[in-house]
Each structure stands twice: as structure tokens, then as C-alpha cells.
């Protein structure tokens, strides 16, 4: 069953009638995701694509359809409220695609989710996909994926696609791929996802893609060293980034001496984790380890 999402996932989409929301919901459905409901206040009672019922509230959507996961496309201004609504309505997984949510909104939301035991992925992320079970919740291009046994975790969207693409080109499929998001406050950290992959019988190894800013990769290095038996290949983006400048992602900024790419790579290597020398070598860095362990013929 790989991790977090799969054939039992019943998805409700918040913001299903917006332009991004409707476009990507269609893409998810085309891939095979079981989209059971949409939510747009004021548009309850309508049908999306002539088959998915739309509700005014998430509570009604969950009650009527048994949705257990939500994908959020609500604009930044209203996104925090949408996340709280999802958490309050009984779904166990909330995937927040929205980019640009005020940081202090997320500071308030996070402890509420933690207390309820609701898992959030994102915000500011491409989402999550389990190719082998035809479940995609997010904006990633499905066709580059291949069902298989490698997990991918990343703070960046297109860089995740790059890694997935490399794996697929090498003939290596993926169990689940997660974009955890580029913001300073996110729901699922590297260590959370690593723990899930370690425990997943359908995953043989993990690619972890980090970047400058924060210390999530440092925590991950410690976790991998102490707790993981499966091979991990890492890449850290931003070697060429100057300090003090925000590189696109709200969270990608060097603000001390320990959050540079070089510092993180050093710490990962000190924990015996293989780090790809360039972004073109992420797939290879995984493949080598699978071969060494006899996990690939």
C-alpha cells in the first residue's frame, strides 16, 4: 500500500471550481484518483464534470461521501481557514497546494492540526502521488512516474519531477512521491516522511531533496543515521545561492552559517548518506545503492 495515499483514498477538493482547482482536479481524475467530492461555498448541489458532487462545506462533503483526504486550492487569503475547516470535518490528510499563505496564519493552524492528529502536506507544494495505486493528489505530471519501490521526498516541485524522471529513465519505479513544500512552516517534515518510508514494506529506498534554509535536512541526517535501514540518496539545492537572499521559496534563505548547502551536505555525508554531486545524478545515486544491496537486478 506504500504511504499515506493509495486506492483507499477518497478525495475532496476544496476550491474545485477555481481555474487551478478545476484543471488539476480533472488531471487527478484522469490519472485515476478517486475524487468523491468538491467544496465551493455557494455552489453546493452542482456537479463537477457531471459526476463529482459539490458541497457548500467540507463537513457536508465528508458526511455524504465519506471523503478521507482533502486537496486545497483555496487562495492564500482564505487558505488557513480552509485547512482548519478540513481538519474540523474529519479528514485525516490535508494536502495544501496553495502558495503564498501568510506565515503567521500557518503558525496558528499547525498546533490545531497536531492536536487533532490530522496530517498536513505542504503548503506551497506539488502534492503526493502513489503511482502503483493510481492515486495522485496534486499538480505533478503523472506521466513521468512509474510504479515501483522508491520513495521521493522534496521541498521543491519541479526538482521532484527531475528526480522522478531520472528514476523512471533508469527503469526504477516509485512507491510514493511527496513534495513537502517550500514554506518555513509545513505540516510534514523530512523525518516524518522518512519514518513512514522506513516502515513501508513496499519501499526499498528513498531520495531526499533538500535545499538551503532551516535545519530539516540536519534533523533528517540524524534520523537516517540512527533509525533507517533503507538506503537514502540526497541532494541539496542552492550551493550557488548567496546568503541572505530568498531564492523563490519563502523558506529558501541562508540566514546563519549552518543552513548553507555546503554545510548540509557535509552533515549528510558525515552521517554516511550518499549525496548526489549534481542535480543530474539524483537517480544514479539511488541506483548505485540499490545495486550494491542487491535490490536491483
Amino acid at each position, binding site marked *: 500500500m506504500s504511504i499515506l495515499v493509495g486506492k483507499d483514498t477518497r478525495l475532496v477538493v476544496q476550491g474545485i471550481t477555481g481555474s487551478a482547482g478545476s484543471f488539476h482536479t480533472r488531471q487527478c481524475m484522469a490519472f485515476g484518483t478517486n475524487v468523491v467530492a468538491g467544496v465551493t461555498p455557494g455552489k453546493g448541489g452542482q456537479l463537477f464534470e457531471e459526476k463529482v458532487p459539490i458541497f457548500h462545506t467540507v463537513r457536508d462533503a465528508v458526511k455524504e461521501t465519506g471523503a478521507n483526504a482533502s486537496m486545497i486550492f483555496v487562495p492564500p*487569503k482564505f487558505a488557513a481557514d480552509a485547512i482548519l475547516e478540513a481538519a474540523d470535518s474529519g479528514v485525516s490528510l490535508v494536502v495544501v497546494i496553495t502558495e503564498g499563505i501568510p506565515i503567521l496564519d500557518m503558525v496558528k493552524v499547525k498546533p490545531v492540526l497536531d492536536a487533532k492528529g490530522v496530517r498536513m502536506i505542504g503548503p506551497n507544494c506539488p502534492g503526493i502521488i502513489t503511482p502503483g495505486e493510481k492515486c495522485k493528489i496534486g499538480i505533478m*505530471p503523472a506521466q513521468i512516474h512509474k510504479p515501483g519501490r522508491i520513495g521521493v521526498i522534496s521541498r*521543491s516541485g519541479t526538482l521532484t519531477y527531475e528526480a522522478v524522471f531520472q528514476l523512471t529513465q533508469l527503469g526504477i519505479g516509485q512507491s510514493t512521491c511527496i513534495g513537502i513544500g517550500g514554506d518555513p512552516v509545513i505540516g510534514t517534515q523530512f523525518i516524518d516522511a522518512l519514518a513512514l518510508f522506513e516502515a513501508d514494506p513496499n519501499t526499498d529506498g528513498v531520495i531526499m531533496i533538500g535545499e538551503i534554509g*532551516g*535545519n530539516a535536512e540536519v534533523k533528517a541526517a540524524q534520523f537516517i543515521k540512527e533509525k533507517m535501514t533503507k538506503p537514502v540518496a540526497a541532494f541539496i539545492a542552492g*550551493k550557488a545561492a548567496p546568503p*541572505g537572499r*530568498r531564492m523563490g521559496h519563502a523558506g*529558501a534563505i541562508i540566514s546563519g552559517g549552518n543552513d548553507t548547502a555546503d554545510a548540509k551536505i557535509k552533515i549528510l555525508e558525515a552521517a554516511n548518506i550518499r549525496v548526489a554531486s549534481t*542535480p543530474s545524478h539524483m537517480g544514479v545515486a539511488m541506483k548505485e545503492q540499490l545495486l550494491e544491496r542487491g535490490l536491483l537486478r
Partner: protein
Amino acid sequence: MKIHEYQAKALLKKYGVPVPNGQVAFSVEEATAVAKQLGVGDKKVVVKAQIHAGGRGKGGGVKLAGTLDQAIAHSKAILGMTLITHQTGPQGQLVKRLLIEDGCNIQHEYYFGMVLDRETSRVTIMASTEGGMDIEEVAAKTPEKILKAQIHPATGVGDYQINQLFFDLGLPKSAAKDFRNVVLGCYNAYVQEDASLFEINPLVLTKEGGLLALDGKINFDDNAGFRHPEWAELRDMDEEEPTEIQAAKFELSYVKLDGNIGCLVNGAGLAMSTMDIIKHHGGEPANFLDVGGSASQEAVTEGFKIILSDPHVKGILVNIFGGIMKCDVIAAAVIAAAKQIQMTVPLVVRLEGTNVDLGKSMLNDSGLAIVSADDLNDAAQKIVKAIGA
């Protein structure tokens, strides 16, 4: 977004944080008037360069004046100077505004700041007895000298937390009320004004026994701009790269760097990686540029214009991972944009995603000097070679 010290102090004052009396001046005349009004002669005033970068004191941008003549002389010297500090870079920053404020008798300089702690997702107060210096240095060398208090968003600052900080800093009783005002004022301001960073360095204990915020640095969370129309007035365009302002108008994320290979990429992580791999092959990236997920013709055209406005750029690497966008659509956008701006520098394009072969053949048949690359590694090697680095 960053603001000036005088703007930060006005905000702090509104929230009850004690700051010296003072006012901004845009000319020597205005500075003279402020100094007189503050009563210079009977007391000292301080003339302070207003630029966003810190380290002004060491760079000669903060001067004490005991007389009106001195205040005028300092104002003349500082206004219009190009101030170089460790934060401005070697080119320095032109001083166009001054803050003239009361001088104070310093007993001790403390550090007081607030940031988001990413590990706990909490707003965190940081305080230290080692004020005045670079706090990063203190953090690196003597981390135990930085006191921290994490604030739960539901409860706000606890009295016990104020107490802990007060006693751990070893502040005298006379400063108790001021300290409470500093902590609560800063926290309230941080939350209500959507800050992403607060730094009062130094927060001083005066000889008279009270506290004063002598410096003030506030950054705002750009994501919260929609609920702060007042930020427009606080913004100082002179402090920003013109190309970055232009990029922001088109919702492009651009950061100017020192190299000569321009990069145009979709996605922040991929854009950083593209810079990295250029460097790996011996080149130097001229910029970071994320044109966003769609990579439309408009975005690409504007991106090219911005990249080429930097005279150092000798070649451009376009790296688009199409994904849901089809490569032929992106190729058409790149070709149209390159034609529109009459591209003269070598252009290497790496496309990936649906219809990649069609996209590549369009690039090759365009009649333009576009080199198409097979993958990221190939692209970086080709552009580095093309500019002869």
C-alpha cells in the same frame, strides 16, 4: 520586505516599546531643524544614516553630536555618502535619509530579537547580554549566551516567560516595567504587523536605569501583503534592485548574482539547481530566475528582458521541466520571445516533459541560434562551452 530604522521605531513606539525621541530628515536643513527641536546643545543628539543594511556604526554612518554645528557637520558628511558595511557588499549603499534622535547614556547594550523558529513553528524571542555585536557570531561561538522563549500562538507571551528572560538577563529592578513593555510590545507588533523578523540591537540599559530600543530592524512577511496596504508607503525602492522590482511586477522571482550565465527556469528548486550545475561545470550564474509553473510566452519574454538588462550576461540557459505544460507550447514561447527581443547571446534550451521531441525539433528549425540540450548536465556543459568560460 524590509523597512528603515526610523520606520521601525515609529511602529515600536505605537506598541509601547520605549524608543529615543527623533525624526527622519531628507536634507541637511531638515536635519538641522530636527536637531534644534530636540534641543541639541543642552543634550547630545545622534545622526544616523538610514539604509536597510546593518553595521552602519562601524561603517561611519552613526555619529554623536554635542552641538548644533557638529550635528550639521555630521549630517552633511553622512547624507549623500556611499556607506559600505558588511551587509551592503563592496559597492555600498547611497544614504538619502537620516534619523536624528536623542543621544542616550548607555550603561549596557543587550540584544533583543524575534524570529520564527522553523523547527517548532513558533514565534521565538531571542535575547542576549551580548548586544551591539553581530548576533550570528554570538550564536556560533557562545550559543549558551542566547536566551530563547517560544511563544504559543494561542496563549501569547506568558508572564513567566517575561520573568525568566528578565532574571536571566540580569536586568535591574528599575528596568522591570520597561522590559515588560519591550517584550509585550514587540510580540504584539510582530503578530499584528505580520513581521518575519525583529531585531533590536542594541536594546540598552541607560545610566538612568530604564530601557531604550536604540536600533530597530523589522522585516515583513511578503505573503501577508494583501492585508497591509500601509506597507506601500513604507517601501523604499532605492534600496531594491531595479531589475528585481521589474521582475516582481510580472510575478517572476528574480535574484541578481555576479556571474555571466543567465538562467531562466520554472520552479525555485530547479532554478537553484540550475545555478548549481552551471557552477559545477566551471561557469558562474548571473541570476536566479523562477518564471513560475506555466512558463507562458509573456513570462519567458519578460524573463529574457530582465536577464539581458544585466550587461554581464554572455549567454542564457533555459531549463523548463514541462510536466503538465507541453514542450511544444513552451518551445513556441521561447522562440517567440527570443525573436521579439532579438536575442544576440548564445541560448541553450533544455526542455523535458510531454511532446519533448516536437519541442526540440521546433527549436532546431526556428532559424535562431538555439542549441537544444538533452538533459540538465548536457545543458550546463553546453552553455559554459558556448560562452567560452
